[in-house]
């Protein structure tokens, strides 16, 4: 029998970026906040110290900071006719676990998604006509606008020590930045990172081709920095151990450096780590939730934590899982086209080429999480005419490295023997002499890509695993081919000695690692028929339940999702502080 605990104002499920932001903001507004995190507490000074953090096997290969698939995973399949089987080992994507969440091991790429995503259906319909959008493509406008979100993007960027160069200041195009970005009110918190050699080469090559390269905006502090809350960041050391590692220099934008320690000092806030939420508890009339049930994974004890407001701030996939397990909202049925919870799961679609330059030295171990250059000419550039190519969405292309460590990164030309003296000779010859060009592409929602509960497999708590049904559709295949052709044309223009060409990926597979940018499942929208939450990320069904994460994205863009995820956390915090607590109820009338 679960022990019922004392009421609090707010219970936060999951303590990463979004849970950290909301915990800090709501505790400062005088609310009693309890955060339940299913993983361990982590402390940068103790857990991310040199030399132990410099361990590729432990952190990259063995996934120390990631969700433990032994306890909880998903089942996966490409289409509805297949039997879903468990993702027995993490591969394609790597949700973080522990205090700090995925924000501990991210690379820091922080983008502002624009109205090209938020108004995707209306913009494409207006320009290309309704028939340009396939019948099974379930994209929709998000219900928010870039202008509404701009101050919150700004707030997140300054909190997370984002380094970059503005390309559009209040409508004025600024040299050196991304000319296709939406207008921003001011510069980035910090100047851009110093470009590594591969990034310099990519910049020169894409300029020569008439494209518009710019430094990738990243939450890797290019200089020591104190954020508006007084949190101190160190300067990035370009250590080459960024993605999948905690940062020993406190230079990576992280809630463990910023919002979480500030919340921890506030007497209104309490963190309970190793606390695994199994269910959101609904009120008898189903119009509200009363709190959550959780298990202390150190003891097995079960608790009920009553709360006036429940915030689901776990990894995107796990937020959707909790809503399906709890019966908050109607599950999506792809055949009947009814229900919304689980709808519009999306991923991303990237390609990559490796370029070999005999005699050059790239020093691939010298890099930051975001020290590469990017072009957006085929992404948020609306003047790129998709009509002749027949796809919706876009892709960004980057040249450089991100955490190329030697177990995983030893580039050799295709056809090289895989072992023996010839393999060693090639490995030695090309390690220093190679660079990569990669694209990351959007994925439009499709009626047959979705989440529901698996009928067979269970997690460590005896609950059904979530089932993911996903594959790339014609739209993504066309864009994948376009991006591969483009990447190969840039590579060719650089005149490498050898090149491993990019090719498009037509079917999603669980191995190898691709991207931890899983979106959708509890999407936002304009009414309860097309969405699970309103524009304030408030459940249409239960007005005191909110969920903040990429699970609210109605489709996936080409950019990394953390920019809008962080901005939406501040946006939701303001809506709760300034409006909801004064008059609890729906913030948008259905």
């Amino acid at each position: 029998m679960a022990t019922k605990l004392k009421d609090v104002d707010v219970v936060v499920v999951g303590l990463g970026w979004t849970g950290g932001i909301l915990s800090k903001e709501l505790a400062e507004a005088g609310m009693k906040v309890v955060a339940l995190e299913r993983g361990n507490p982590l402390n940068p000074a103790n857990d991310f110290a040199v030399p132990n953090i410099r361990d590729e096997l432990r952190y990259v290969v063995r996934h120390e900071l990631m969700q433990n698939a032994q306890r909880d995973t998903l089942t996966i399949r490409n289409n509805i006719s297949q039997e879903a089987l468990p993702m027995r080992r993490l591969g394609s994507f790597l949700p973080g676990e522990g205090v700090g969440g995925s924000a501990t091991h991210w690379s820091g790429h922080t983008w502002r998604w624009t109205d090209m995503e938020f108004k995707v259906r209306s913009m494409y319909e207006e320009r290309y006509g309704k028939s340009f959008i396939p019948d099974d493509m379930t994209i929709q406008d998000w219900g928010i606008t870039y202008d509404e979100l701009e101050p919150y993007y700004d707030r997140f960027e300054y909190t997370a020590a984002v380094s970059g160069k503005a390309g559009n200041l209040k409508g004025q195009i600024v040299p050196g930045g991304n000319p296709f970005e939406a207008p921003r009110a001011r510069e980035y918190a910090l100047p851009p990172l110093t470009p590594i050699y591969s990034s310099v080469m990519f910049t020169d090559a894409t300029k020569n081709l008439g494209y518009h390269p710019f430094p990738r905006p990243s939450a890797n502090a290019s200089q020591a920095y104190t954020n508006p809350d007084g949190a101190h960041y160190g300067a990035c050391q370009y250590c080459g151990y960024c993605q999948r590692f905690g940062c020993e220099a406190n230079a990576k934008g992280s809630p463990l450096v910023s919002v979480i320690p500030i919340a921890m000092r506030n007497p209104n806030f309490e963190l309970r780590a190793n606390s695994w939420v199994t269910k959101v508890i609904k009120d008898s009339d189903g119009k509200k939730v009363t709190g959550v049930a959780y298990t202390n994974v150190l003891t097995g004890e079960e608790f009920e934590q009553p709360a006036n407001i429940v915030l689901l701030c776990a990894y995107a996939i796990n937020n959707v899982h909790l809503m399906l397990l709890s019966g908050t909202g109607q599950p999506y049925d792809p055949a009947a086209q009814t229900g919304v919870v689980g709808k519009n799961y999306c991923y991303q679609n990237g390609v990559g080429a490796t370029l070999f330059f005999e005699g050059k030295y790239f020093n691939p171990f010298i890099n930051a999480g975001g020290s590469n250059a990017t072009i957006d000419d085929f992404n948020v550039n609306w003047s790129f005419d998709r009509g002749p190519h027949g796809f919706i969405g876009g892709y960004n292309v980057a040249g450089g490295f991100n955490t190329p460590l030697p177990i995983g990164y030893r580039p050799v030309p295709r056809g090289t023997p895989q072992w023996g003296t010839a393999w060693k000779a090639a490995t030695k010859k090309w390690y220093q002499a190679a660079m990569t060009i990669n694209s990351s592409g959007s994925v439009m929602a499709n009626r047959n890509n979705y989440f529901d509960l698996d009928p067979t497999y269970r997690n460590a708590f005896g609950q059904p695993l979530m089932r993911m049904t996903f594959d790339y559709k014609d739209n993504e295949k066309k864009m994948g081919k376009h991006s591969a052709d483009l990447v190969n044309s840039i590579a060719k223009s650089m005149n490498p000695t050898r090149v491993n060409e990019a090719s498009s990926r037509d079917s999603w597979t669980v191995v190898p690692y691709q991207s931890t940018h899983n979106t959708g499942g509890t999407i936002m929208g304009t009414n309860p028929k097309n969405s699970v939450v309103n524009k304030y990320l408030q459940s249409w069904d239960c007005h005191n339940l909110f969920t903040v994460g990429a699970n609210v994205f109605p489709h996936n863009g080409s950019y990394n999702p953390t920019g809008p995820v962080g901005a939406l956390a501040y946006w939701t915090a303001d809506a709760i502080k300034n409006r909801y607590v004064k008059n609890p109820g729906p913030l948008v009338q259905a």
Partner: protein
Amino acid sequence: MSDQDSGPQGFARRDFLKGAVVGGAAAATGTVAAVTTAEAQSQSPQPAAAPASQPGYAFLNIEEAAFVEALVDHMIPADEFSPKGTDIGVNIFIDRALAGGWGKGERLYMQGPWKRGTPNQGYQLPLAPADLYRAGIEATNAYCRKTYGGKPFDRLDAKQREEVLVGLSGGKITFEHGPPARTFWGTVYQTVMEGMFSDPIYGGNRDKAGWKLIGFPGAVAVHREHVEQYRNKPYTADILGIADLS
């Protein structure tokens, strides 16, 4: 290379060890270490990494140890680029990995039912990595005995070993009884690479031989001042691992 020539890395050691169980473990350890060192010195243009003492095995049995030693010395031969696999501890890395949490299925979802699935659904066997290794070695040796006149992998000559590895990696060899050969090979290949390029604290990459091969500087990584200075210039520094800094 004749079967006789492959003796020190396979035949002699294997039979000696089997006899040594009766004859006394201490004698066996000393003798085998001497054999290994002598062979390394005779074959390797590079000085062998200091063998010090045989660290011993925590998981591999005698036949498995012989297989793994033969495998890593074939994949990583002694040449101008590095000492051979056993001289840089790749066999020890593999043994420790299989004996430890990873080998026993840590972070691996191990509930049934078990189905073959599609390639896109990834690993679906009811085997932890150590079980897969054990079953795969047995199946590979069964294949070798059938194909090469009764000899297990470690008694094959270099050309035959090459044939087997090409067959495993290319999907031409399938096991009559045992796990899918390519799944086994995928795990074998990954662990050999891990053993050559992971931090030496795990038993492989001894003397940073893998890192030296490519010029990876290891765990010291304060490059803020190096980004511009070393554009298109070779960066060299003492290669240091976790133990050097602890």
